[in-house]
Each structure stands twice: as structure tokens, then as C-alpha cells.
């Protein structure tokens, strides 16, 4: 049976298959991968993962790169985010297709609790929440299937004068089916990079030793086969995962670094949200959203201004968003693609903002905002829990643990 034929120019071929009649009707789907692919490609992720078990044939069809590619647009739409242990749906139109995931992170009895460090294309990098850093355990967790793996401890990380500076997860649904974890160790005054591959199951020293004036490697973002850290400025490091090489960012030197509100990836784009310059009261509500594609050059990043955002209406609508000297209480939690409830197909970029007790969704295209969640009875800590907000996404690749 020919697979994935191009439709339209194959009529002659199809006519010649008139003798094929016996296979029609009941057995029709079983023998036609085109139709099967079309149907299965419209299932939610959890059904797809389950249906891999229907038969060997289905397993090979659903595990095939071609199917992954077809399904990828659905996966790149995220249905919600975790704030600490709590899941908050974004309320987009596509959500009915993705059943709610787990409600808490208690996948493993870690008595220090578990927190999410990074969300990367369907997998979460987690670690022990409280307690001494050297006793901390790291986990990779798939919130769709509840599978998890405990990451072996990094060789040498218990040595005197050594500490883990940063852990970053690199996982791509199509290009890199095995995940990698990138660890930056600080050994006295120098740094070292070790890398863990899920297929090998071992840590390996990758960059033995380097000196850096950049000392914080927080909030790693995996984009375009590399890990970037949120403090991007000229001469900041980034790590090319595919080449296993540390490189410097070439950015124009700036006199003053504006405040970074958000740094993350969505559907192949890298987004940076920065405070716009200005010294008046509302200026902290004014920001620029930059968007980069794979072939854009970092040096021209500031030319890639995608949206100018003014959230002046927010403190008016929500007086609980108090003003402190030079800032309002709010945090940009996510920049994500979504579909409004009323719109059938139209995808737009949204900014998800946390204010005390509430989560707000801001449509960057038409500048409308909408309250999507009331957290008043869940967290009583103002905006502090928002620093642990991580996007929920799904992957079709459950078996790489």
C-alpha cells in the first residue's frame, strides 16, 4: 500500500486500484495509512500515546517522524502553565483537545518537595525544593504520562569548593528525541560544563574549565539547538548543545541594560520582553516584545521589535496591583501562541501576566486582556509564587526515560 500519496494528481493511479474493492469498507482504515494519519493526527496527545499500543503497525505509524511533523503544530500550542504545584489552563480554544494533566508534582516522594526549574518541549526539569543544595536531587518528568527519571548526581559536585550553578534541559520533539541535561559547575573561581545524555545515561565533562565574568546562569532557555540564559548582554555565554561548544553572544554593547521581564521560546521563536526606557510612574508597564527566528542574527535583535505593550489599564482594573517605588506588582509569566475561544483558527501571540491573586491573559495582537484564573485562595504571597511559573507542553516521545 502506497503511503501518504499526494492527492490530486494520482487519480489515474487510484483508478487502477479498482480491483482493490475487497479491501474496502471495514478493513478500509486498517489498510489506508493516509486516512489513519488524518484521523489519529486529530487526537489528543494522551490518546496518541495510548494508541501506540493498539498494534505494531499503529506504533510505527505514530512514532514516525512524518507523523510527529504533522502533529507538531498541535503540540506547539501550550494549554496552560504550572505555578508551583498548581496547574492553570490558559483557556484557549484548542484546550478541549488536551485533557488536563496531573494536578500536582507529587510524582516522587521527595520529602523536600519538588519544584520545576525548566519546561522544555514537553519535559520538565525538576529538583528538590528545600534543604541543602548538595542533597538536592534532580528529576526529568513528563507531566502528560507521569513518567519520571531521577538524574544521576553530577560527578565531582560534592567536592569541596564545588557547587552546581545551573542545570539546563535540552529536548526537541523532532530533532533531538533523546534529552540532554547541561550542568554548569563552579569549581572555586572557574566553571566547568558537564553534559548528560538520556541515551547514554552518564555525565561527561564537556568544557573542562573556563573563566567567566558572567556568574549567573539562571533560567536557561533551549532554542535553536542551544541553551541561552536570561541575562543576555554583549559577551554573555551561550551553549551550543549539538556542537557541545560554549560561545559568546555578539550583541551591541549597551550603556544600560533595561530590565528583562521575560525570556523564552515559543514555536521556534525566541521572545524577549524588556522594559521600555522612561522614568515616569507608568513606564514599568511599558515594554517591548522582541521576536527572533532561527535565521535572525542576535546582533540585530533589537531591530526585531514585534509588539509594543502598554499595560496602563491593568492597575486601573485591578487596584490590588500596588505601586511600589518604581514598579507595580506584576510578573510576565509566559509569551505563548494561542487561539481565542471565539476565533476558530486564528493563532495569536499572548502574554500571560501574574498580578497579586490573579492570572491575566493579554492578547498582543488586539491588546485586549482577560482574567483567566483567580489564585486568591491558593497563594497568599503576592507575586512571589510567579517566579516558579513554568509552561505546560506535551510530547509524543514518552519512552526516552
Amino acid at each position: 500500500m502506497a503511503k501518504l500519496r499526494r492527492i490530486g494528481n494520482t487519480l489515474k493511479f487510484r483508478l487502477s486500484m479498482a480491483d482493490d474493492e475487497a479491501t474496502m469498507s471495514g478493513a478500509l482504515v486498517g489498510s489506508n495509512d493516509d486516512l489513519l494519519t488524518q484521523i489519529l493526527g486529530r487526537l489528543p496527545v494522551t490518546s496518541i500515546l495510548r494508541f501506540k499500543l493498539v498494534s505494531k503497525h499503529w506504533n510505527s505509524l505514530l512514532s514516525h517522524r512524518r507523523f510527529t511533523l504533522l502533529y507538531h503544530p498541535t503540540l506547539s500550542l501550550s494549554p496552560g502553565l504550572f505555578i508551583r504545584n498548581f496547574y492553570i489552563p490558559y483557556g484557549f480554544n484548542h484546550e478541549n483537545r488536551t485533557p488536563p494533566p496531573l494536578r500536582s508534582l507529587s510524582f516522587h516522594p521527595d520529602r523536600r518537595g519538588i519544584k520545576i526549574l525548566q519546561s522544555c518541549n514537553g519535559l520538565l526539569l525538576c529538583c528538590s525544593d528545600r534543604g541543602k543544595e548538595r542533597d538536592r536531587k534532580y528529576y526529568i518528568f513528563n507531566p502528560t504520562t507521569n513518567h519520571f527519571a531521577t538524574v544521576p548526581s553530577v560527578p565531582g559536585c560534592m567536592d569541596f569548593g564545588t557547587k552546581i550553578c545551573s542545570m539546563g534541559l535540552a529536548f526537541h520533539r523532532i530533532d533531538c528525541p533523546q534529552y540532554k541535561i547541561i550542568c554548569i559547575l563552579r569549581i572555586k573561581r572557574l566553571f566547568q560544563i558537564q553534559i548528560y545524555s538520556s541515551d547514554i545515561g552518564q555525565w561527561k565533562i564537556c568544557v573542562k574549565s573556563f573563566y567567566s565574568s558572567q556568574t549567573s546562569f539562571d533560567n536557561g532557555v533551549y532554542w535553536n539547538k542551544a541553551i541561552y540564559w536570561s541575562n543576555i548582554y554583549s559577551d554573555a555565554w551561550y551553549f551550543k548543545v549539538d556542537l557541545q561548544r560554549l560561545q559568546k553572544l555578539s550583541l551591541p554593547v549597551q550603556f544600560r541594560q533595561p530590565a528583562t521581564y521575560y525570556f523564552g521560546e515559543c514555536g521556534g521563536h525566541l521572545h524577549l520582553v524588556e522594559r521600555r526606557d522612561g522614568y515616569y510612574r507608568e513606564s514599568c508597564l511599558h515594554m517591548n516584545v522582541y521576536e527572533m527566528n532561527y535565521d535572525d542574527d542576535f546582533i540585530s535583535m533589537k531591530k526585531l521589535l514585534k509588539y509594543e505593550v502598554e499595560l496602563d489599564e491593568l492597575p486601573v482594573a485591578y487596584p490590588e496591583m500596588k505601586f511600589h517605588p518604581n514598579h507595580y506588582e506584576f510578573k510576565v509569566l509566559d509569551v505563548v501562541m494561542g487561539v481565542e475561544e471565539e476565533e476558530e483558527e486564528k493563532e495569536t501571540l499572548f502574554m500571560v501576566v501574574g498580578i497579586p491573586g490573579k492570572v491575566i491573559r493579554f492578547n498582543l495582537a488586539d491588546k485586549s486582556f482577560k482574567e483567566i484564573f483567580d489564585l486568591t485562595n491558593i497563594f497568599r504571597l503576592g507575586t512571589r509564587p510567579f517566579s516558579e511559573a513554568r509552561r505546560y507542553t506535551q510530547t509524543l516521545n514518552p519512552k526516552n526515560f
Partner: protein
Amino acid sequence: MSKKTLTLMSKDKQLFNIEEHLAVQSVTIRNMVKEDGASSVIPLPRVDSETLALVIEYLNRQQAPEEDEDYVKKFVDERGEIPTLLELAQAALDLDIKKLMDAACMKVADLIKDFTLEEVREALRIENDRTPEEEKAIRDEFQWAF
């Protein structure tokens, strides 16, 4: 100006007439009309007469574009039986009628998404090509799926 009519023939050799401007919503038929001027009868050897009647009913719909989306949803909803929907989806795929294909496939997906593996195999008549030993091994490995 009289409207041009095409004749479609189902696999059980039944003939259906349809106005050309409606028939060409099917990209496959449109290409045929373009290529050979679609002389007499267009044979559709993979579509049975009941399914073809449905397809023709759909192509003949008189809907304003803004109501079309709802119409096609309702159209497939009313034919909620999986075997009928599969035939319809297959015909829409072969004839390249995108909206109908989308809606029919979406409906099938909606119907089967919470099925057990056994129910899926039965509904879509899929043969389980695993041996009982393989089946057991996979059930142990993927307990969450059952």
C-alpha cells in the same frame, strides 16, 4: 447560460448528476475537468453509492460562507456512526474536499479518543499484530495506558 452538469459513477456503477460548479469543490474533480475537459462520466471506483450520495448532498449545500463551518459540523454529526464516517472521510480524502475531510476525521477522532485499546481495534477493525507474550510485556511497560 445553462449550467454544465457532470456525471459521477460510484463503485457499484450508480450514476449521480451534479452541476459542475458545485462538483469542482473537490480538487480531484477540478483537476480532472481541467485536464480532460471531463467528457462523459467520471468513475469513482473507491466510493460506494451511499457515500457518494452523502458527498453529493454536501456539495449541493446552499450555505452562506459564514454558516458553512457550522453546517459541515452538523452534517457529520448527523452521521455519527463510525463506519459511515470512515467511508465519508475516505471519499473526502480521495476527492480532496478539505472541509468535509477535516470534519469527518475530527468526528471520528472525537468518538474514539477515550476508547480502550480493544474498543479501538473493534471500531476500526484493526488486527492486533502482537503475540500474547508481546502484548503482556507492553501492558506491563505501559500500565498508565490501560
